[in-house]
Every structure is written in C-alpha cells, then in structure tokens.
C-alpha cells in the first residue's frame, strides 16, 4: 500500500529528527548550566576592570607572576568596556555576579559602591602602609577607612613631533603666548595639523581630562579651585574658571576643520602617521604613541605669565578592592597585598609605561618617554582633577554634564563664557552646595 510505505519512510525520518532534536536540547540545557557553574578545584579569583587595553600584559606577565608564587590560585582577568564598566559593575553587584577583585574608579563612583557596602574595608591590610593617606583619599570613606589599594596614577600633557618642530624651527612652548605662536606657525606652514585631540561626543571625556583639567589647574590654583567649587564658595562663572575655559577654547582655530568627527583613536592615528604636529594625550599612551624609534617629545600645560610655576595633573587612576560578596575574600586580600609590593609596582611600571605606581617604593623607570612624563612634575605643583569627587555621586553629575558642555564649546561657535554659564546653571540645579549660586 502506498500509504504504508509513506508512513514507514516518514516514520524513520521523523524518528531521526526527533532524536536529533532531543539530543540537541539535552545538550544545550546542561551545557549552559555547566558553563556557568564553577568547577573549582583551586581558588579562582576574577578581576573586574575597564583596562581591556592592558589585557595582554596581565595575562602574559602579571598573572603568571603571581600564580607561580601562589600555586592553588588561578586568576581570571575579565575586563569590560570603559563606558559600560560602572553600570555593568553596579548590575553585577546587585545580581551577586561581580568578580572577587574590583578595579576601583577614582572618587565618585567608588564612593557609591562604598556607601552601598559592595567593597570590604581594608584597614590593617598588610602593605597598606606603603601608600600615603593622600594617595588613598579617592578610595576611602568619610572617616578615612581605605577600601581600595591604590595602584597607578596617570598624567596629561602634549606630545609633539620632534621632526616637524625641527623642520619648522620650533621649540616646546612654556607660556600660553609661546603655545599660540607655535600653533600659528604650524598652521601657516599649512602642511600639518597643528593640534590633534578627540572631538567626537562619544570621546568627550578626553576634552575634560586632557583638556580643561590639563590647562585649567594653573588658573584655578589647583586643588583649592576644586574645593571651592565643591563647597559652593566659588561658582564656575568666576574669573579663574572662566580663564580655564578660555585657555581650552584657544585651541579651537588650530584643531582640524572636521574636529567633531575625530575620535580618540583618530587623533592618535593622525599623530602617529605624522599628519599632526601636536597631540594632547594621557600618559598611558606611551606604548602606542612613542614606541622606541619615534622622535617624540612631551611638554606640559602652558602658564600665562613667564616664570610662573606650572601645575601638573596627576590622577590616581585606579586601585583594587575586594567584593564584599566574594566567597574568596582571604585569597583576594592576599592578592591585594601583592599589589602593594615593590615587585608588582616595578612590573606594572615596566610593562605598562605611562602608569606610575603610587607606592612609596623607589622603582626604576627604564622607558625614556615614561620618564619624560615623570619629569613634568619637576618644579611643578601637583594637582588632582576637580569635580570628580563630591560632584560625581549622583545623576546628573560633573562628568556627564561637563564633558558634554566642553564638547559643544569646542565643536560649535559657543564661547567660553556661555559654556561656563551653561555649566553653572546645570550644576546649581542638581548640586545642593551650589544651589545658592544660580
């Protein structure tokens, strides 16, 4: 009978299909369960971080260094993208899926995690005495209890192409007038872009950290200027801050015409390719911008009056803390103690030039460009960026508001006075100590 044959053949096919399907399902479900259950014969510590860029060095050098000395401990380096780090970490804390060791952002965001008891206090941790109280400030609570071990600081400044400078007979500027003169000369020559910086809105953080916070401290007199804004005793439209906005705005004629679509990597690329003469950058970029063989120099933020002491920005960029929900707190604390040692500091500085360990130990910097960054501190007043602490603990906050305003100021016809006014208006609406300065 035709129908019987049809049924038989179909039956076989169907049985096969159902078998495949059943196998498939029975593989997928346990596979995904297995993949997420911890198969721990040894203690595994996971490190949360936003420094995906440093992954290679961590995986190839730093982690093996510790694992060799501490058999039975396995370390997993698990970075997230910088912009998503804080929100993803917050979610992981809530869902109890955060790693054991947490890389701490400077100031504001970490303070929130401290307040929510996501990190454990580190009082009494061996090795913590290796750091000054000042360097631990951005990771301590109101009573000074530390929650993160500081690891490295970074700076900001200007790279310049020595060959182009030589060709155009220029020397690195010390004052604002000299700086503008240098930029003018390069612009007149016409062959190179005078100044490269990040102009896209997605990279607007750069215009703050390596823009306003680079040239500004000289005008608002460093840390004092930050405290004044925090307390509400000064407002952003006061002359010293206005001068800072103006100093930044003075770059505008010398940035490329299509600045608004130039991202952070585009700016770097422009300088690397030799099409831009000066690049404003952070010290962490030594490996990319100034590998051996490149004829590159550094100069710091210009002063207004010749002979004045310059200010140099030093930002305690990151530290490491322990997740309060981690089941491996003892092992995590042991790792943190290693982070306080000279061995770690030296390895960090050597492999990640441009990051400067905050410990009291004397370490040797063998990378000449990293040394050049350190030399900027000679004869200068060291200051931290403003607005990152008390103004950064809510929504909106200093970071989101300032970065946007700076980006608008630099890419449109907005004047420094308008930018300062916009910032003050926004600040007074969500920051209580400034509410009276509407």
């Amino acid at each position, binding site marked *: 009978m035709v129908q019987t044959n049809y049924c038989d053949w179909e039956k076989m096919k169907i049985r096969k299909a159902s078998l495949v399907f059943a196998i498939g399902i029975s593989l997928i479900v346990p596979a995904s369960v297995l993949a997420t259950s911890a198969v721990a014969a040894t203690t595994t510590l996971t490190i949360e971080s936003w420094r*995906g860029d440093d992954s290679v060095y961590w995986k190839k050098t730093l982690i093996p260094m510790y694992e060799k000395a501490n058999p039975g401990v396995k370390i997993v380096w698990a970075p997230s993208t910088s912009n998503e780090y804080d929100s993803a970490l917050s979610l992981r804390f809530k869902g109890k899926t955060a790693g054991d060791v947490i890389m701490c952002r400077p100031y504001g965001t970490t303070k929130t995690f401290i307040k929510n008891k996501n990190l454990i206090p580190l009082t009494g941790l061996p090795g913590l005495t290796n750091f000054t109280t000042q360097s631990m400030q951005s990771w301590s609570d109101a009573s000074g209890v530390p929650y993160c071990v500081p690891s490295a600081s970074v700076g900001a400044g200007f790279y310049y192409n020595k060959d182009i400078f030589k060709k155009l007979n220029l020397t690195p500027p010390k004052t604002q007038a000299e700086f503008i003169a240098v930029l003018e000369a390069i612009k007149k020559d016409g062959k190179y872009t005078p100044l490269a910086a990040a102009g896209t809105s997605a990279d607007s953080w750069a215009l703050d950290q390596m823009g306003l916070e680079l040239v500004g401290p000289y005008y608002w007199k460093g840390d004092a200027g930050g405290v004044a804004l925090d307390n509400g005793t000064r407002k952003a439209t006061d002359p010293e801050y206005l001068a800072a906005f103006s100093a930044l705005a003075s770059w505008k004629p010398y940035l490329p015409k299509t600045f608004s679509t130039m991202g952070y990597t585009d700016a*770097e690329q422009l300088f690397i390719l030799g099409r831009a003469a000066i690049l404003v950058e952070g010290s962490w970029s030594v490996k*990319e911008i100034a590998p051996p063989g490149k004829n590159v120099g550094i100069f710091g933020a210009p002063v207004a009056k010749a002979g004045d002491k310059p200010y140099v920005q030093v930002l305690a960029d990151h530290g490491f803390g322990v997740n309060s929900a981690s089941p491996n707190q003892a092992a995590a604390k042991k790792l943190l103690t290693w982070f306080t040692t000279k061995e770690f500091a030296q390895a960090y500085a050597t492999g990640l030039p441009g990051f400067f360990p905050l410990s009291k130990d004397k370490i040797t910097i063998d990378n000449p460009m990293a040394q050049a960054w350190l030399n900027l501190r000679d004869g200068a007043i060291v200051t931290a960026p403003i607005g990152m602490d008390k103004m950064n603990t809510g929504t909106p906050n200093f970071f989101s508001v300032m970065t946007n305003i700076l980006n608008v100021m630099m890419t449109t016809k907005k004047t420094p006075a308008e930018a300062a006014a916009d910032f003050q208006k926004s600040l007074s609406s969500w920051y209580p100590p400034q509410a009276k300065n509407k």
Partner: protein
Amino acid sequence: MKVQNQSKNLLVHFVMIFFVLLAIGPILVIVINSFKTTDAIFSGPLKLPDSATFTLDGFKRAILNGNFIGNYINSTVITVGSTILTVVCSCLAAYGITEFTTKLATVIAGLFTIGIMLPVTLGTVVILKMMVRFHLLNTHLSLILVYVGISVPLGVILMVTNFKTVSNDLKEAARIDGANEFRTFLIVLPLVKPGIAAVAAITMLPIWNDLWFPLILTTGPKTQTLTLGIQQFVGVHTNDWQALIASLVLGAIPLILLFTLFSKQFIKGLSDGYGK
C-alpha cells in the same frame, strides 16, 4: 515594440545594478581591506591587495584576540538553540490553531498577531529582575528563553499560513489509518518545509545580530556573543585596524552565506505562506 521593450529592460537593469552596487559596494570595500596591511589600508583604501600588501595577519589576530572563538560558540549555541525551540513551538502551535478551529483558537491567533508588534525590549527591567532572581544572569539559557519568547509570535503566524495550505484529505487519511493527533502532525510537517525554512531564517537573523539583550543579560566573556564582542572590540581604543576590519568580516560571513545560499527557500517560504 520590441526595441522599446529592449530599452525599457535595459533601463530597469541599470537601475537595479545601481542599487546593487550601493548595497554591496561598501561591504566589498571592507572585505578587500581586510586582506591588506595597515599601511595599504590607509594609503589606498580602494585598491585591491597585491602580492606586497596581501596579508592574513588581521584575521590571525582577530581570531586570537581575547574571546573571538568563545564568542562565536556562544552566538552559535544561543542562535541555534533559540531557532530550534522557536520552530518546534511555532509548528506545534500553528498546527493546533489550524486544526482545532474554535473561538479560542482565533483568540490565541490574535494574541500572537499582536505579539508580533510588541516592543519587547521595553520589558527589559523585569526580564533582568527575573534572570537575577533565578540566577540565570550570564547564562546561555537566559538569552534563549527571551529570544524564543520574542520570536514565537511571528513564527506561529507564518506557520499558520503555511499549515492552512495542507489539504484535509491527507490528515483524514492519516486519522483513518489510526494515527493520533501528534502523529498526524508529524506526517503533515514535511509539507510545510518551506515555511519552516522561512521561520528559521527570520528567527535566526535578528538573534545573531542582536545587541540589546546580550548587552544587558551577559555580564562577562563567558557568554558574550559575537556581535557584542565585536562591538566592544570596536569600542576599545585600539589602533589595530587590521584585526578590527578582519573581525567585522568574520562576524558578517555566517549570515551572508546562509542567506545567499538559502535565499530561494527563504523567499518561497514567505510567499507560499503569504499568497494563500
């Protein structure tokens, strides 16, 4: 008359070719550049690689970078798993709706019709809470469950139009032979193969390329999908243009191949179900 027809035909061809170039041109430029050295990419973006500038380095580094293979596996597991489950559920439901025509069936069909247009991502806050509560965060399962839930409405409706084409005679004959409902279903299944292909294709596409749910529900490299991985790779401040472009190309290939090879079946499944 014939000459006029010829020129009209040519005109249409020209227009189509223009659109085709617009569609494929940008993609070809990227593919070409994925085989070149960094200098060659910047100095002559539109030039084909010659023996001096040809290199597979970008691909090598893209694959070895971090989690590429892991991401690929994750994407495959999630996409294939979701697609299989969606197809199965859709076929079952569609058979039921077309076979047991009652008012309830109409209501259920209406529910799924509305479901096609539901902006599911707006429910993410609760989906997130659910996954946290059941410890499913950072698992393949969490994504599979969500994707199946989103994809069944369209799957069901597509299969309903396909099942409607099956003649009752075949089903009656099977029943007379003593088959129960499920067996009848299995017998009818091969007849709606084009529909199954269409549902599989339509389900797979948005899942493989999805950015939203992996962004929210996967919190680490363990379950990171290929699309998310590439987005993060692009987002990191990297100067490795070769690896970047190579990873984009590698990420695009699976679906391009799938849809090019099976485009006939896909269209057939859509129009078969459609026209009736």
